[in-house]
């Protein structure tokens, strides 16, 4: 993957997506559903009208942020599979901060902006700290980060659910939900008129992607992170402490995941509930990042594509009798194909499409 050229990566990403969608359509057909109707509904659900587009962009906002979080770590050679958990605790920190401080701060726009800022800072701090844990475990006791981050995902959902259910549920309610955030703590919808999507949210996601790209590509810290990921011995010789780099990488990645959590809590949910019912943005983000070859800027188009797939998939779940889980399976197939670039290189060579340079 590292050796591939930009054009080759792009071709592999497109081919993987198309092949996965094709297999998805064939499975739909083989299960006795209408495959053409499936593809039509997927496209219509993603971009058919203004509210569908708003939904796509809303999902894209989340996937770009979580995708950047994954990309930061993968770029530096660390597998952060725990973005989902970091996103969960980050969003929880936002809701706790806002609910705790709302009574002591003024209401209205000013109060709302201050609360959102403080809530976001809390999310970034908590997300970063939660990601630092597996970083420390990997750096200082050699614990495989793939497994520790997955365990921490399970623990994050379990503990947050427990705290909400036992302590934060308003008296007399049975659903495990916290109280709602105050009305004025929300992002304006602007052109889309959607209560759960805001252009400001998308702008923050795009800014975050660009900012992370600049840090990773143009600063000393970013350079050290990326070199120690790809050329560990070279990095060590040039005086980079590889253990500290692992912890820094994970923390940085978790901070972005925390920001995604804040966005989810403020823009989409407006309260907090059982994390087991949340969308799996943190996992889909792995596919987003891989499709983008772990480049923070590449995450933007990949995030838009997956946002569309997600929105189209949910539309299918509502309107056709094809189960929406299919789209999750298709996302898995995309990851599978992206992981095996050799598959495409070999078939391209066999079909005589370039690839002769070897």
């Amino acid at each position, binding site marked *: *993957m590292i050796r591939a050229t930009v054009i080759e990566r792009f071709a592999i990403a497109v081919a993987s997506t198309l092949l996965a969608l094709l297999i998805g359509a064939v*499975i739909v057909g083989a*299960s*006795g559903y209408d495959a053409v109707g499936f593809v039509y509904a997927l496209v219509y659900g993603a971009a058919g009208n203004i509210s569908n587009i708003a939904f796509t962009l809303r999902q894209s906002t989340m996937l770009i942020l979580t995708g950047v979080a994954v990309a930061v770590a993968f770029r530096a050679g660390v*597998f952060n*599979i725990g973005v989902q958990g970091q996103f969960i605790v980050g969003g929880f920190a936002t809701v706790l901060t806002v609910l705790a401080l709302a009574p002591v701060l003024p209401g209205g726009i000013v109060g709302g902006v201050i609360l959102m800022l403080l809530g976001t800072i809390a999310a970034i701090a908590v997300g970063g700290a939660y990601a630092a844990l597996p970083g420390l*475990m990997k750096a200082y*006791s*050699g*614990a*495989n980060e*793939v*497994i*520790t981050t*997955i*365990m*921490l995902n*399970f*623990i994050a959902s*379990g*503990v947050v*659910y*427990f705290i909400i*259910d*036992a302590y934060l549920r308003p008296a007399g309610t049975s659903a495990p939900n916290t109280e709602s955030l105050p009305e004025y703590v929300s992002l304006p919808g602007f052109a889309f008129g959607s209560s759960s999507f805001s252009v400001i949210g998308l702008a923050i996601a795009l800014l975050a992607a660009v900012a992370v790209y600049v840090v990773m590509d143009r600063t000393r810290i970013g350079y050290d992170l990326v070199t120690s990921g790809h050329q560990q011995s070279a990095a060590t010789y040039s005086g980079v402490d590889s253990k500290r780099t692992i912890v820094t990488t994970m923390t940085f990645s978790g901070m972005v995941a925390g920001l995604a959590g804040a966005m989810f809590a403020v823009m989409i949910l407006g309260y907090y509930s059982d994390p*087991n019912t949340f969308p799996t943005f943190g*996992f889909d983000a*792995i*596919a987003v990042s*891989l499709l983008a070859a772990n480049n923070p800027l590449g995450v933007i188009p990949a995030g838009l594509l997956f946002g569309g797939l997600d929105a189209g998939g949910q539309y299918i779940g509502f309107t056709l009798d094809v*189960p929406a*889980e*299919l*789209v*999750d*399976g*298709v*996302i*898995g*197939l995309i*990851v*599978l194909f*992206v*992981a*095996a*670039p*050799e*598959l495409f290189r*070999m078939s391209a060579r066999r079909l005589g499409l370039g690839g002769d340079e070897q």
Partner: protein
Amino acid sequence: MSVAEYVAERRLTTGVAVVALLAIVGGILLDVPGAELVTVGAIQRALQAAVPIALAAIGGLYAEKSGVFNIGLEGFMIFGALVAAATAWGASGAESITQGDLWVGLVGATIVCGLLSVCFALLTIRYKADQIVTGLAVWFIGLGFGPFTATVIWGGVSSPTIPNINNVVVPVLADVPVLGRLLFDASPLLLVTLVVTVVAWVVLFRTRYGYWVQAAGENPEALDTAGVDVNRVRYATVVFSGTMAGLGGAALSIGFGSGFTGTGVTMVDGRGWIAIVAYLFGNYNPIGAFLASLLFGAMDMLQIQLQTVGISLPGSITGLFPYVAVLVVLVLVGYTRVPSAVGEAYETEEK
């Protein structure tokens, strides 16, 4: 020998000692009547909970020993659980499911998961796909297509109630106190697991094929020079790992559970991941992996035990014990000497 190496050598002993110490301290703090916690019934439940984990762990151990990190165990278990339930249900013609149908389900799950792991092996060995990313993909595909297939078959992400496989009762021996109830009136899947554990140990450490498996992961060039096809050994172990994980999944849905549950992270609920930790913890020794699985199984069943002695912790918290235990174990004995060629595709020189 450095401390780290010593701990790695004695990881199981060290780990069990630490967990036991924590349990004793916790027990004293919470005033738990220890003797009432360890009953024959408790051991029985712990063994049952260990079966799916141990099967997947032993398979994964073989794959990793030969140089392929099969991180997709969780996904294969999801498919195993689903296919077992679906095949048994299909074999009965959607009528009342008999014991025979359940056995057909077991066979179906192992065959389908075996075939799926051939695809995984082709991608990672022949097409040199990144093993970690491919394994993650297997997990995602399981999480998506598992509940999808269930919906296509049953109209919902979970199956209707499906009966368990009956215990095998050995006459006379079943009346032996304690051991009789544990071993001679037990699920056939437990017996299979015990056999698999012992055979896996013998093959890996006492036969020529076992040395091939180890060499494929440690020093593939040497094995190649000795005239053994490295990739053929790897194909075999990867298919074995997928098959065992499938059997483990089947044990969950029709061995001890009551059908397939596809909600949330499905009924497999992280056991495939715990299986990986189990064999790391057992230092790539099948018997060690089984004992580690037993430890996690006991942890899983702790809630029931605590309730029977009158301590009620919320299920959402006791359900987290195995995950926390995995973290504690990895931090304490995280250092493992992974076979040196794991993750690298092997290409023979002569062509």
